[in-house]
């Protein structure tokens, strides 16, 4: 599977305008519903980023307190803490904070994932801010077409 043209940015349906509720407490984030992304054709996914709408706190603070969970087509988390990845043991997903992954400028996080048509990824979001909601502007996946 060879990347030959791109990238194209795909926005995960349901991610634009999604509002994450206030966290019950620091260290106890609110968790969004899970969105399902189905790849329309074989592609090479080489990055992703999540954009936020401006909020009541500094953008960097908002990004530091908002996290993302992605599970791939094999039901394995793209982000894990390496606990439980031994064969036969469920590999629990963990949430990755946006500020770590995308920085203050919102750079795409580079990955390398060839995927087949109809493969599905599952994404959810967390807000760790106990005082402010977060509104998403979209989760974007960068694809290279496979011709």
């Amino acid at each position, binding site marked *: *599977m*060879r*990347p030959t043209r791109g990238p194209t940015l795909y926005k995960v349906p349901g991610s634009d305008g999604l509002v994450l509720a206030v966290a019950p407490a*620091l*260290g106890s984030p609110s968790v969004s519903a899970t969105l399902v992304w189905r790849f329309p054709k074989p592609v090479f996914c*080489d*990055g992703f980023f999540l954009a936020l709408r401006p909020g009541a706190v*500094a953008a*960097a*603070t*908002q*990004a*530091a*307190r908002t996290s993302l969970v992605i599970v791939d087509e094999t039901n394995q988390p*793209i*982000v*894990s*803490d*390496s*606990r*439980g*990845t*031994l064969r036969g043991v469920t590999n629990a997903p*963990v949430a*990755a*904070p946006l*500020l*770590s*992954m*995308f*920085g*203050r*400028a919102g*750079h*795409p*996080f*580079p*990955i*390398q*994932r*060839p995927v087949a048509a109809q493969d599905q990824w599952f994404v959810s979001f967390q807000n*760790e801010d106990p005082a402010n909601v977060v509104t998403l502007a979209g989760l974007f996946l960068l694809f290279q077409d496979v011709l």
Partner: protein
Amino acid sequence: MQDFPVSVIEWTQKQLGQYGRLGATRVVKVPDLPAPIPATTGSLAQAPLLTWRDPGTVISLYAQELSGLLPKFAQTDVRLQFSGDEDLITNGSAGDFAPLLALVGPNTNWFPITRRVKRGDVWTVTYRNSDPSGISTAYPSMLFAFIADADLGRAARDMAQQGQ
């Protein structure tokens, strides 16, 4: 060392040209601290151990402090110990701390490292609250971009099957 098809090498070079680094196949997060580091200046907190379960290559480090503010990045230090009594940061005679801001500054959110890991390797991350006021807790976290050997092997097989 495994030989990869030319297309894999071309694609790797493209990634380096496009991003200045390689893409990860997985992201591995250091298990979170159970609570913020106490406010007392110099307080230490060791994260739960990171035990590598799959062989592969770590290509970069990402980190943050929960406030997202640059002063907190400058006042929160980190020490990373690899398996085998080796540190990422050393003063020449022992492992040492560096501020988050020195590793992941305002313009670049990642720090390049290249480390092979094998199953069972254990990395230890220790944070230090160096806020001189002594009144502010710190809640740092860290991630690693990781290329699992198994994932790269799969990509190579995919390309080979398609005759590329």
